[in-house]
């Protein structure tokens, strides 16, 4: 290889500076705020206060875990069926999966609120048949539904991507060697699509566990997730130190789960 030119050497400098200032240092500042009080004195108070949020953390993880598992159960057969269609329909189907993602999440969620609320579209419809209105908004089910709805494309896309790349001749040879449909799925398709499943899992779980808008709208103010707790500290109570310690916990937990997941996924499926 040729020696790098001067331009090639300094091309990265602005980005390195930018990343240090606005990616790395902010992380350090979160740690700094988490371990200081409002006057900038070192303190463990914010960490101690985290104990009050045990319930919130547990609920957040429980709901987003359930949502992620259901998303996977829906997405897997969907991606599988999609990968069996003709190339042209696959392209169109893929675009149709991605399209709603480009509509602002706030609007999509608000629109669901219109559909599900007490005087909403579903209940208005049921009323015409004399059916009692259903209570949907304000239940954990509505929040979990909101998570599934908003993030399902993040599950379908990676699973579909790996499935569409599975070598067809592998499936043929499995058939030649006597595999029926089910064992082909279990022994060939499933193992080969694992990287997609794993990256889909993290891509749904991370935004679900940290959401605050979905729980605000579909939870009707009755469901408080960790994102809501952070939002309240940062935007209403202005207790930045507590907000920072909550964010720090969220960051660490997600980092750990990423490392665990990466281990299952093999080296670089998730990264560039």
């Amino acid at each position: 290889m040729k020696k790098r030119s001067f331009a090639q050497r300094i091309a990265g400098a602005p980005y390195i500076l930018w990343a240090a200032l606005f990616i790395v240092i902010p992380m350090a500042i979160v740690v700094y705020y988490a371990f200081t009080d409002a006057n900038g004195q070192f303190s463990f108070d914010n960490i101690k206060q985290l104990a009050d949020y045990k319930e919130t953390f547990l609920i957040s993880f429980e709901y987003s875990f359930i949502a992620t598992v259901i998303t996977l159960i829906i997405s897997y057969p969907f991606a599988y069926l999609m990968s069996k269609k003709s190339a042209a329909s696959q392209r169109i189907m893929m675009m149709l999966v991605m399209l709603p993602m480009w509509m602002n999440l706030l609007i999509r969620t608000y629109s669901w609120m219109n559909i599900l609320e007490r005087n909403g579209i579903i209940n208005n419809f049921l009323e015409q048949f004399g059916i009692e209105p259903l209570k949907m908004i304000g239940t954990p089910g509505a929040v979990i539904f909101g998570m599934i709805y908003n993030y399902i494309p993040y599950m379908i896309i990676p699973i579909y991507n790996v499935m569409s790349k599975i070598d067809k001749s592998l499936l043929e040879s499995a058939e030649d060697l006597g595999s029926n449909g089910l064992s082909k799925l279990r022994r060939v398709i499933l193992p080969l699509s694992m990287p997609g499943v794993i990256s889909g899992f993290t891509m749904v779980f991370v935004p679900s566990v940290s959401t605050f808008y979905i729980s605000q709208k579909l939870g009707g103010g009755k469901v408080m997730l960790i994102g809501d707790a952070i939002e309240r500290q940062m935007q209403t109570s202005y207790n930045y130190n507590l907000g920072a310690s909550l964010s720090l916990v969220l960051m660490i937990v997600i980092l750990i789960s990423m490392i665990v997941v990466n281990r299952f996924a093999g080296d670089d499926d998730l990264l560039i």
Partner: protein
Amino acid sequence: MKKALGNVFIWIIYLILYAPLLVMVFFSFNEGRSTSVFTGFSLKWYEELFASRDTMTALQNTLVLAVSSAVIATILGTAAAMYMYYLRNRAWKATMKTVTNIPMMNPEIVTGVSMMLLFVFIGRLLGADNSLSFGTLLIAHVTFNLPYVILNVLPKLNQTDPHLAEAAQDLGSTPMQAFVKVVMPAVIPGVISGFLMSFTMSLDDFVISYYTTGSDFQTLPLKIFAMTKKTVKPDMYALSSLIFITVLVLLLIINISQIRQEKKNASK
């Protein structure tokens, strides 16, 4: 039978995916103020939308922010990808890749909070009361756009044959000429899709903007958030329908250019 069942499943999923969008477009034409009871067809909410100065300012703000953050991110990100491509120190390269991935892996709320704290911290050091403004919002948007540019450009660089640039240099061009004439044309599609992706990400962002903007600069998603705190009138749906169509057009452009590129590659 099995196939029909599969198709029914697919249609149900699409129906659910599009239900709120249909509701949105439908009720944007409502005559009444409600977003769940339809009383008659009217275009008045669209008229009201264009008459509203607030909304038009927010729209202008959103576009200014999206264009400027995408331009800055594309320039910085392309240069960074080029640097990372030529980088030979493996540990340093791995570090750079990890740092690049941080804004994508971190929950948005954590990215937003961490940047907000940085700006508040620096603001306090400088003795400013309120340090959040358009500038901080722009910095935040560039930061979360950068990984998308790098992720689009770097694979294109990796696909180019390094020997081509070397051959150009052997034939007497300077490294810069070799880059401009040989490497650049190959990465342009990545640069363009990185730019478009950044633009749409920025257009759509709410969470990070929510934490990093000042009270004097409102974008559309922030305005929508403020509006959804109260009962919403159909004008917000009208606005969203328009945004949706804009994004749809952008996506179509990206897709068509990709199909063309593929065809071009296939015919080579």
